[in-house]
């Protein structure tokens, strides 16, 4: 049983089809890139997996279960926006994560924040955007989850921070878990990926290991992507 499965997954927003009869199976212990142009369905897929959206038809299973309370406890979701309550302090946030997620490693999170010199009694409101992004990342990666869903974790971020983010992801994901990184910045992320999934207009047009793709095509995933999605 794969840890992440989609069968004939479809999502329509009115007349727009975001996901079109999609099939996908992903195993744990891998870092998988969800790659595709804007509007290809990446965020929709991730939202359905974290149960922030309901499919129109078909199913998505995490660890054999439909998205629900049980899967939310096993899934660590990092959306592509700021979601921290501004009125809380970093210390309160750490406590909140600990309160709700049994797989949250509070000591590790506190350690990571300390190493970035983020004050623990500081109001989130007073932190810069870059720092808030890092706090969100730290909170997410400090969970020993079975599935990590990272939606554009390095977009809009300077190269040094990108490095930090990728290292944080690499160094902290739980053994045997699935890390799904949705991004359009392929070159930076490519060395970190086991597998690449290309998404176009709501369905999977490629699902292959990165090394196999390079060997087969003699191109990097980024270059192959440019070809596959040439306008």
């Amino acid at each position, binding site marked *: 049983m794969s840890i992440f499965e989609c069968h004939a997954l479809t999502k329509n927003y009115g007349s727009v089809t975001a996901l079109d009869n999609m099939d996908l199976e992903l195993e744990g212990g891998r870092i998988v890139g969800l790659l595709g142009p804007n509007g290809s369905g990446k965020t929709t897929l991730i939202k359905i997996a974290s149960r*922030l*959206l309901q499919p129109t038809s078909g199913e998505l299973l995490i660890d054999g279960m439909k998205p629900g*309370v049980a899967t939310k406890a096993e*899934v660590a979701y990092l959306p592509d926006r700021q*979601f921290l*309550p501004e*009125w809380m302090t970093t210390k309160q946030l750490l406590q909140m994560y600990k309160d*709700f997620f049994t797989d949250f490693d509070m000591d590790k999170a506190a350690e990571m924040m300390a190493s970035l010199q983020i004050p623990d009694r500081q109001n989130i409101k007073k932190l810069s955007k870059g720092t808030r992004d890092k706090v969100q990342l730290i909170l997410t990666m400090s969970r020993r989850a079975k599935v990590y869903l990272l939606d554009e974790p390095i977009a809009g971020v300077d190269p040094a921070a990108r490095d930090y983010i990728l290292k944080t992801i690499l160094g902290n994901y739980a053994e045997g878990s699935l890390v799904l990184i949705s991004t359009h910045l392929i070159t930076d992320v490519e060395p970190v990926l086991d597998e690449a999934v290309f998404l176009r207009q709501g369905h999977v047009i490629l699902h292959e290991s990165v090394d196999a793709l390079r060997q087969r095509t003699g191109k990097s995933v980024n270059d192959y992507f440019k070809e596959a999605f040439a306008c």
Partner: protein
Amino acid sequence: MLGKLLKYDFKAVGRIMLPMYAAMMVLGIVIGVTARIETGGKTLLSIWMLLFFLLVMAAVILTVYLLVERYYRSLLGNEGYLNCALPVTTLEHIASKVIAALVWMIFGCLAVAVSGLLMGLISTDWQDLVEAAQFIGQRLLHLADNAEALLLFVKLFVIAVLSLTMMVMMVYAAIAVGHLWSEHHILGTIIAFVAFQIVMTIVVMVFDKTGVAIHFAKMTGVVCYTVFWLAVYGTLTWYILDRHLNLE
């Protein structure tokens, strides 16, 4: 998990309302003291009273605003990405918000009452206080004997709480319906709210015509009516938040 949700819902509102209530009670004490020591011109007292009145008004408006804002922001705004990803059922989310709303409203009333009490206690002479206390004490004992009156009190209290809950649920349902219209969710909320009023009025009129209304004039009737709408709005809110969530 509900307890944990409540903890954070209370914290979010408490950090603003508790200082206000503290200020209210301090003002109550100040007024009480001023009333006591001032015998002549009542200008200072009037100023304090005005201030108190404004504070109460502000607290009421702030409470209503906060409860709406807290619900909207934490479930349907950016914080929704955090809260809706928590391993908690939609029912627990809604229950937490409604209970918190109720508690804060009741707490607010209590704060005003206590402030008023402080005012009265401090400004009144000791003998008058003792007399008043005895008088009230007698009346209460009288009441305790009268089971019917007691029951009436309890019924009224239950109806008050249920009605308040129903109104909160109605507002939350309107906001949820508004959320469905992604480009104009505020307009959607207002339209939904108006639509709810219209529907409730129509239902009452229908019942009026069919002559069933007579039964609803009684207490139990009112309770059933309130609980019915509470269930309707609650279910509507749950259905939208659980099945049609679409955060931007």
